[in-house]
């Protein structure tokens, strides 16, 4: 950014607004590290941007606005602590507390520390000692910068509930001293899994419900993809790439999966010309990297100097980490990629999909994965081959209350001409399904069955 002291205030306000959108979370992440407190840092960040609006018209826009904002925020926070101390006329600990706040300005050349701050923030917000609900709320609040009201609306929860969830999580971070750091190599895999689970939860919240408040919900999926990109950029691990690919490939079908009246359209019946090509292409590229034989490398953004420093830091992290093989997200993305490459349901390489599910079942032996594999077998070998697999899974009991298991059995029975069995299973699925488009779809299938 160029120094332009003559810039009109309106331009500067616009510049600050742009910076706020792009970099406020980065500034916040570094301030949390320096100040050691979420609320103090949030206030300091707001103050820093306010100071920019006041001072830049007079002094010009600094060459490096982000470090300027961090310094300003740190200064404002220290100032605030001193002022409060004078008001409350207490303890000499304030001097110690203020002194303990490191001076970031002196260390601005140490790009690595600062570059890692957003990653520290992500790992802290998704710390496994916080409840899953709190992890999601905190991630959207602190990393995405959504307001409490926006998060509440997206999750159809009362704002007061959301606010309390965030306040409690921050209190726990402070009291239990949840560290603000990137986990060490030996625990990185597990902790990254927690981060990716939060992101995928956000994505699915935006993806699975397409009725009613569809706009805010689609925004949630877009935000999850943005978070996925951020993690891949900071920590190019296979599973992070796998998740990003999976989200892009699922999102590419959004325009095709509901009809004009909001009704659900299954993968088989979708108009594939409506699939988003750009998202598919990007998703395919990430799948390839996630499954590559060699450890993946990604061109880092930022200046060449910080990029090379980051590369070596990442290389060190990976060297210490256990040999990272691809995981469940990369495999699910690979399955989505096979669908993306097929011109129609019939032209889909079902043998390839069953093969991928075989690997996924070993990695993630859950009944839902086994169900998806059974459906793929039915597509490859015909419904008669899939039915016994699904009935065994239902007999195991774990999927008894899962509407999609009954819907899958219903569909296979329908294709086999076993209409009474199909009817019973559609009815069971309908009784269990909660989302309106799914219910409408099942009701329609039930109506279309021959008596």
């Amino acid at each position, binding site marked *: 950014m160029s120094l332009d002291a003559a810039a009109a205030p309106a331009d500067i306000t616009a510049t600050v607004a742009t910076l706020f959108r792009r970099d406020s979370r980065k500034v916040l992440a570094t301030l949390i590290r320096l100040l050691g407190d979420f609320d103090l840092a949030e206030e300091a960040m707001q103050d820093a941007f306010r100071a920019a609006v006041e001072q830049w018209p007079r002094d010009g826009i600094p060459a490096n606005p982000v470090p300027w904002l961090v310094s300003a925020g740190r200064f404002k926070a220290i100032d605030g602590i001193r002022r409060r101390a004078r008001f409350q006329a207490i303890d000499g600990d304030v001097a110690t507390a203020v002194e303990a706040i490191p001076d970031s300005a002196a260390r601005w050349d140490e790009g690595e520390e600062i570059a890692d701050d957003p990653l520290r923030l992500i790992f802290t917000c998704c710390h496994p*000692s916080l409840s899953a609900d709190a992890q999601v709320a905190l991630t959207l609040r602190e990393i995405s910068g959504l307001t409490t009201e926006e998060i509440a609306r997206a999750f159809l929860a009362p704002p007061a509930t959301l606010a309390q969830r965030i306040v409690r999580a921050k209190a726990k971070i402070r009291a239990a001293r949840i560290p603000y750091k990137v986990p060490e190599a030996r625990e990185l895999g597990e902790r990254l899994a927690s981060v990716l689970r939060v992101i995928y939860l956000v994505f699915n919240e935006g993806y699975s419900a397409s009725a009613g408040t569809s706009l805010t919900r689609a925004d949630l999926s877009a935000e999850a993809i943005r978070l996925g990109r951020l993690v891949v950029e900071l920590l190019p691990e296979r599973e992070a790439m796998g998740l990003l690919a999976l989200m892009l490939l699922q999102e590419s079908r959004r325009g095709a999966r509901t009809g004009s009246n909001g009704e659900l359209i299954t993968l088989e019946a979708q108009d594939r010309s409506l699939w988003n090509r750009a998202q598919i292409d990007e998703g395919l590229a990430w799948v390839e990297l996630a499954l590559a034989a060699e450890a993946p490398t990604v061109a880092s953004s930022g200046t060449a100097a910080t990029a090379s420093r980051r590369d070596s830091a990442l290389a060190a992290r990976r060297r210490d980490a256990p040999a990272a093989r691809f995981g469940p997200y990369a495999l699910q993305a690979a399955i989505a990629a096979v669908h993306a490459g097929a011109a129609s349901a019939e032209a889909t390489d079902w043998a390839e999909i069953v093969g991928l599910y075989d690997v996924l079942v070993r990695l993630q032996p859950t009944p839902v994965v086994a169900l998806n594999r059974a459906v793929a077998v039915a597509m490859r070998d015909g419904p008669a081959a899939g039915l016994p697999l699904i009935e065994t899974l239902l007999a195991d009991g774990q999927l008894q209350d899962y509407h999609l298991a009954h819907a899958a059995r219903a569909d296979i029975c329908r294709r086999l001409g076993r209409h009474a069995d199909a009817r019973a299973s559609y009815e069971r699925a309908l009784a269990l399904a909660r989302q309106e488009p799914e219910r409408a779809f099942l009701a329609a299938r039930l109506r279309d069955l021959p008596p």
Partner: protein
Amino acid sequence: MKYLCLVYLEDDKLHAIRDSECLAASERLHAEGRIVAAEALHPVHTATTLRLRDGTLTMTDGPFAETKEQLAGFYLFDAADLDEAVALAARIPPVRTGSIEIRPVRELDPTP
């Protein structure tokens, strides 16, 4: 920073792990200088619960609340942060048979 790790076990698991193993584990942690205090407790039926109300001290037999899992022992650790406390608590043998609740110790506010 201090963390109190409370060891909870179901009745039938109280002796699932031999004392000697617990002793060995706590000696290792002691040697590393991480333990402020650590003790095992007698079962809840030996507990006495005390209340002072309106100047009267009353005692009742048994624990404050009957729960499926009972408090069987505790460790007070010195750790830099929660991650470190978790790493230490994970070395308490009953983590395999019961559960361990990690509570950060609160500094009392001296202001009258």
